[in-house]
């Protein structure tokens, strides 16, 4: 065991995970003044008073099995001081299949809750006032439908729609690249996004109808610089689509939000957020002439954990998540989700989920890190690294533009292939030990008996119960109203100009199922054909 560096290692080239060579010591001449927080281009944050005015939202992702069980977990989390809900949906709901579809077999209620119709959403939020909480849905392919369902659920509770706060992910472009819950081809998918975002602007002005996500491409293997660059490129594609459909960028840009992973390199991650925030503001100003500060402000949520978690000696992940949590706060995140230490190999238990929540509370209330705005601001190294990352991001975005834009890069499978190659490189680096993973490829105890703690087991009877409720919900609804609503949806979708949200909301009120709505739209639009290129 030798903890001391050998002379050769001390002088060797050291680079961040994105490949930016790190100086041995950063000096005054390397950095420039980042300006003030709350002022364009917002390097130091979008608020002049940072977290003093408003702390970040602690938003833990959970939801599994049936609506009843998830409802119990949500109430538990709210009682424990959580300030927002984050709903995980099962894959059939995400991919637009009802629980009785052959493709849904063995996936019902697995990675999230099944929400096949408004009936289930009413159960999910029973006893929870939708006017008093903010809810985030990780939903993309069927995002417009789930958003419609949320509005219908609020109507049922008597909560005015304008009072609703929350987020739907609603970012289909990265689904084609890395997460895979696409349904329709790109053009109609972009329409669904534009319809929901423009509708939300008018009807639920405090609700984020899109959260443009880099998290999944990052976990699929790309670097921090690429994560931000691909995400901003997708963001610009949405701005173009929204503008083309009559949206006013100065208005809708106020409600665009972003979502990222944070991995283990503390400074690179903090600088990724500082650089991305600044670059987004500059891009909106340069390309669209936006000058309104509110519209230029880059708001984002962060997940700590994901693929940086390690199955070997899993309790070490608690420390990893704490460091990542710190990076997210130093980067100025608006909401943070901390993964549980056992997420490297299973759905978290209540025990591990509580530690993840407490980690954030310790950072927020004990560490003092949120007491002053952007405490890293003005550090020679941090300002220098922020500049290097912004340059790197611009370079990656220029490459996408040169290819013909992000939509073409995705439809051709070009972007997917780049990410796969990057993932392979990262795996090779890890296998060779160049990328150190403590407990796995370095400092691994021989004959290590990993302790995995409590085991999460989903109740195997859940799928059966969901199927029963699905049949029951279809039997007890007003069949004529559901049929009329679905016909109206198909008619509205056939015209490219009509906003689909009102008909989707009526479908939800009529207890039409997610699968029924998707089926009607598939008839018209077909399905995305995945480019399988290696």
């Amino acid at each position, binding site marked *: 065991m030798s903890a001391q560096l050998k002379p050769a290692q001390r002088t060797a080239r050291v680079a961040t995970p994105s490949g930016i060579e790190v100086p041995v010591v950063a000096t005054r001449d390397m950095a420039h003044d980042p300006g003030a927080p709350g002022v364009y281009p917002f390097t130091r944050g979008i608020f002049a008073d940072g977290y003093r005015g408003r702390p970040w939202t602690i938003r833990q992702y959970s939801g599994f099995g049936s609506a009843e069980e998830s409802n119990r977990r949500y109430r538990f989390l709210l009682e424990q001081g959580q300030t927002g809900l984050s709903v995980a949906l099962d*894959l*059939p709901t*995400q*991919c637009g*299949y009802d629980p009785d579809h*052959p*493709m*849904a*077999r*063995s*996936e019902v209620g*697995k*990675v999230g809750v099944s929400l096949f119709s408004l009936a289930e959403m009413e159960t999910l939020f029973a006893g929870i006032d939708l006017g008093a909480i903010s809810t985030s849905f990780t939903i993309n392919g069927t995002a417009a439908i789930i958003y419609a369902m949320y509005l219908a659920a609020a109507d049922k509770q008597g909560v005015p729609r304008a009072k609703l706060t929350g987020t739907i992910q609603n970012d289909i472009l990265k*689904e084609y690249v*890395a*997460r*895979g*819950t*696409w349904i329709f081809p790109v053009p109609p998918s972009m329409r669904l996004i534009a319809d929901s975002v423009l509708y939300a602007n008018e009807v639920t002005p405090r609700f984020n109808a899109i959260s443009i996500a880099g998290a999944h491409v990052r*976990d*699929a*293997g790309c670097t921090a610089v690429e994560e931000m660059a691909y995400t901003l490129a997708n963001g610009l594609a949405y701005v173009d689509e929204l503008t083309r459909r009559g949206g006013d960028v100065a208005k809708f840009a106020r409600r665009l939000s972003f979502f990222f992973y944070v991995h283990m390199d503390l400074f690179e991650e903090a600088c990724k957020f500082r650089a991305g925030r600044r670059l987004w503001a500059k891009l909106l100003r340069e390309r669209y002439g936006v000058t309104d500060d509110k519209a230029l402000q880059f708001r984002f949520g962060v997940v700590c954990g994901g*693929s940086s978690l*390690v*199955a*070997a000696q899993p309790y070490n992940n608690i420390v990893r998540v704490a460091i990542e949590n710190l990076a997210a706060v130093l980067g100025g995140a608006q909401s943070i989700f901390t993964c549980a230490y056992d997420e*490297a*190999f*299973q*759905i978290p238990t209540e025990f591990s989920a509580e530690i993840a929540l407490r980690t954030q509370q310790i950072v927020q209330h004990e560490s003092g890190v949120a007491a002053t705005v952007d405490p890293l601001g003005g550090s020679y190294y941090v300002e220098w690294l922020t500049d290097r990352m912004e340059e790197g991001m611009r370079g990656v975005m220029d490459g996408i533009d040169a290819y013909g834009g992000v939509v073409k890069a995705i439809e051709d499978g070009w972007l997917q292939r780049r*990410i*796969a*190659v990057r*993932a*392979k490189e990262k*795996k*090779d680096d890890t*296998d060779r030990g160049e990328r150190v*993973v403590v407990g*796995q490829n370095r400092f691994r105890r021989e004959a290590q008996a*990993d302790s*995995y703690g409590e*085991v999460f087991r*989903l109740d195997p009877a859940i799928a059966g119960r969901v199927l029963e409720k699905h049949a029951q919900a279809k039997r007890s609804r007003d069949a004529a109203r559901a049929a009329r609503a679905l016909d109206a949806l198909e008619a509205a979708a056939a015209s490219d100009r009509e906003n689909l949200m009102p008909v989707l909301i009526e479908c939800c009120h009529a207890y039409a199922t997610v699968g029924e709505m998707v089926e009607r739209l598939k008839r018209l639009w077909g399905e995305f054909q*995945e480019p*399988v290129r*290696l």
Partner: protein
Amino acid sequence: MSAAGAGPLAGKRILVAKPGLDGHDAGAKVIALALRDAGAEVIYTGLRKSPEFIVRVALDEDVAAVGLSILSGSHQELSHEVLAGLRAAGAGDIPVFVGGTIPPQDRARLLDAGVRGVFTNDTPLAHMIDELARALG
């Protein structure tokens, strides 16, 4: 990348498949690239394939091995369905490997059911290639 025909898996045709609805394909693609580097001819299905479809492709393409990538927690059911499908088609001798987010305590159950090997993201690629090369002779 090694030329076709060289490497420990030279001449082997291997199917890498994504059963079910799980959309996380980074692992499957990394495996496919590694198998190809090792000389194998790789057929990758793309996302969202039913066990029936995977069995059919395995037979039609006369593959030497099948790799299933599952990160959604449905590894038991989906692996069992593929194994049963291969057996029913008289191709129970095609070895099936499973990779993904597999809780440690599920490993033995998969092996008992007839899965030949289980790999997770901390398995070194060289180790996986060795194991395949041994299994495929």
